[in-house]
C-alpha cells in the first residue's frame, strides 16, 4: 500500500497543467466565456497529448494507462475550467472513430441534460426531444432532455468528480491568494481568524475529496465512486462559495473567475449522478 502519486503520475499531472497553461491561459478562458464555442485546435492538442486515448491499450494507439491517471488529468481540466464534453469524448475514445485523437467531439445524453449538443460531432443516446436552455454556466451550453434518468456510468461519475476536485483546489488557492494580498483595516484580510478559518475549512474539504476521488479511481468500486462524487460536488460548490465570500465584493464581479467555478460546479453536481442519487446508492450499500 502506497497511496501517494508515483513519480510518473506526478509528471503526467504537471505535464497536463503545463499544456493547459500554454494552450488555455486566462485570456483563452475569458474569450471562451464570452463566446462559448469549442476550440477545435485545442481539442486536437488534447488528443495528441493522449487526454482522450489515455486508457486505450497501446496496441490500439492508446497510452495504456488507467482510471487513476485519467482522474489526475481531469482534475487539471477542472482546475483550468477547460470547457467541452471532455468526459463523454474520453469515454467514447474506443468506440467512436476520431474521438481518441480529438478530431471527433462526442457528447452524451446524461439523464435530464446534454451538454454541447450543437457543437458536438456525435451524440450518444436519444437526444431527439432535447430542448435548448440558456445555460447558467457560460462555459457549458446545455439542452434539457425530458427522459427518465439512465443509470450512472461509474467512469463518467468518477471523472466528473475529479473535475470538481480540481475546481475545489483552485478556488481554495484563489481564496488564499486573495486573503494574503488584500488588505483591509491595515492588514491582510487573511490575518483575521474569520477569513483564516474559512480558508482552512476549504482546504479540509478539498483534501477529503481528494482522498475519496483518488481512492475511487484506484479501486473503481461503484459505491466508492458515488461517495467520491458526493464529496467532490460538496467541495467544489462550497469552496467556490467560500472563495466568493473571502473575495467580498470583488468576487461578485463577472471579471473574477470565482463565479465560473461555482456555476460549473453546480452544473457538474447535476451531471451523471446527483448528490441525492449518490447518497441513495451509498445508503443501499450499507
Amino acid at each position, binding site marked *: 500500500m502506497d497511496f501517494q502519486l508515483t513519480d510518473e503520475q506526478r509528471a503526467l499531472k504537471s505535464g497536463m497543467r503545463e499544456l493547459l497553461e500554454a494552450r488555455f491561459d486566462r485570456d483563452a478562458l475569458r474569450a471562451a466565456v464570452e463566446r462559448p464555442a469549442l476550440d477545435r485546435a485545442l481539442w486536437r492538442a488534447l488528443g495528441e497529448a493522449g487526454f482522450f486515448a489515455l486508457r486505450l491499450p497501446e496496441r490500439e494507439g492508446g497510452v495504456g494507462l488507467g482510471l487513476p491517471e485519467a482522474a489526475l488529468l481531469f482534475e487539471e481540466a477542472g482546475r483550468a475550467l477547460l470547457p467541452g464534453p471532455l468526459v463523454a469524448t474520453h469515454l467514447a475514445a474506443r468506440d467512436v472513430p476520431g474521438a481518441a485523437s480529438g478530431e471527433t467531439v462526442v457528447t452524451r445524453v446524461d*439523464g435530464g441534460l446534454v451538454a454541447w449538443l450543437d457543437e458536438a460531432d456525435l451524440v450518444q443516446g436519444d437526444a431527439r426531444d432535447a430542448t435548448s436552455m440558456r445555460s447558467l*454556466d457560460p462555459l457549458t451550453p446545455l439542452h*434539457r432532455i425530458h427522459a427518465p434518468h439512465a443509470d450512472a456510468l461509474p467512469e463518467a461519475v468518477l471523472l466528473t468528480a475529479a473535475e470538481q476536485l480540481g475546481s475545489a483546489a483552485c478556488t481554495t488557492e484563489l481564496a488564499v491568494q486573495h486573503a494574503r494580498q488584500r488588505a483591509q483595516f491595515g492588514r491582510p484580510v487573511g490575518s483575521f481568524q*474569520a477569513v483564516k478559518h474559512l480558508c482552512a475549512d476549504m482546504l479540509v474539504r478539498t483534501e477529503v475529496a481528494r482522498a475519496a476521488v483518488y481512492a475511487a479511481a484506484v479501486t473503481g468500486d461503484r459505491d466508492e465512486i458515488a461517495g467520491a462524487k458526493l464529496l467532490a460536488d460538496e467541495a467544489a460548490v462550497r469552496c467556490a462559495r467560500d472563495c466568493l*465570500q473571502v473575495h467580498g*465584493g*470583488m468576487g*461578485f464581479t463577472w471579471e473574477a473567475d470565482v463565479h465560473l467555478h461555482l456555476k460549473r460546479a*453546480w452544473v457538474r453536481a447535476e451531471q451523471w449522478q446527483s448528490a441525492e442519487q449518490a447518497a441513495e446508492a451509498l445508503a443501499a450499500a450499507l
Partner: protein
Amino acid sequence: MDLTYTEEEEAFRAGLRDWLALALPELPPRPVPSDWPGRRAYDTTWQRMLYDAGYAGLHWPEAAGGRGATPTQHLIFLEEAEKAGAPYVGANFVGLLHAGPTIAAEGTPEQRARWLPPVLRGDEIWCQGFSEPDAGSDLAALRTRAVRDGDDYVVTGSKIWTSHAEVADWCELLVRTEPISESVPKHRGITWLAMPMDAPGITVRPLRTLAGSAEFAEVFLDEVRVPVTYRVGAENDGWRVTMVTLSFERGTAFVGEVVACRRTLAELAAAARANGRWDDDGLRRQLGRLNAEFTALWRLTQWNVSESGREGGVPGVGGSVFKLRYSHARQELYDTAARVLGPDALDLDRDWTLDRLSSLSYTIAAGTSQIQRNIVAERILGLPKGR
C-alpha cells in the same frame, strides 16, 4: 406584546390598499433591466404617483416634507406595496433612503429646500459614492481626495458599487479632505458632498456582476469641481454625518423582501407538489423549515420595528442580527429552489435562477457577515475588540 393593528393603522392600510388597486394599473409596463433611462422614468413615475397620493416620504419627518409616519405605518406601507406587486424604490433608493434623510438631518435649510422636494416628487435621483476598490469592509480607509480651491472642492479618485450612476442627477459622495496620519485617524478627515453627476471629469463605467447584468458601475473622478456649498455637515465630519442616517430605516429595510420570500416559498411548495419532488421527505421538511424561518424573520421585523418606535432602541444593531440570519436564509431559500427544480435550476430563463445568483451577494453587500458578527459580538454582547 400586541400583534394586532390599531384602528388608525387598519384605516391606513385600507386606504393604501384602495389606492394601490387604482394606481397600479396606471403604471406603464416595466422596462427591461438593461434600459437605464427606461428604469429611471418608470421609477420616477411611480414616485410621482406616490407623491400626488401623499405617500411620498412616508417615513420622513414632516419638517423635511415627509408624512412623519410611525415605523408601523411604514411597515404596513412596505408590506401592502409588496403584496400588491407595486415597484420598490428602484432608482429613488439613495435619494429616499440615504441621501435624503442625511440632508434632512444634517443639511442647512437651504440645502433641504434645494434637494429634498425633487426627491419626494421623483424629479431627481441620487446615487451613492461611498465604496472604493480598496475600501470595502474598511470603508473609512477611502482615498478619494478633495482639495479646497476657492469656493470649490476638486475631487479625484474612484468609487465602486454605484447603482444608477448612469442616470443619477446627484451623487452622495464621501471624500477625504484630510490625509490619514498619526494625529488624524481614518474616520476623521472624511467629508460628505453632493456631487452633480453632469460635472466635467466624471466617467461612469458599468460593472458587470456574476449574474451577467450591470446593476452597478464604477465612477471615476478626475478633478471634478464640487461647490463648497454642496457640502453637508462640517468639513472632516462626514463619517458622523453618514452614520447618523444608518439607523433611519428603523428595522424596515427588508420588509418587502421578506414578504416576497414568503410568496416565493409558497410558489416553491406548489412547484414541488406539481413535479413530484414533494414526496421527498427531506425536501418537504426543508420547505417546512423555511416556512418557520421566514415566519420568524417576519416576526423579527415586527419586533425591530416596534423597538425602533421606542426611545433608546439601537435599530442599527438589531439590524445586524436580522441581516445575518436573513442573508443566510435567503441563500438557503434559493438553494432549496434549485433542489425543487433539479436540472431546470441550470436554466437562466427559469424563475429563481437569477435570484439564486443574486442571493450570493447578501452575505457580502452592505457589510459582510463577518463584519456583522463583529458588530453583534462587540456592540451587543460587549466582547472585547482585538483579534
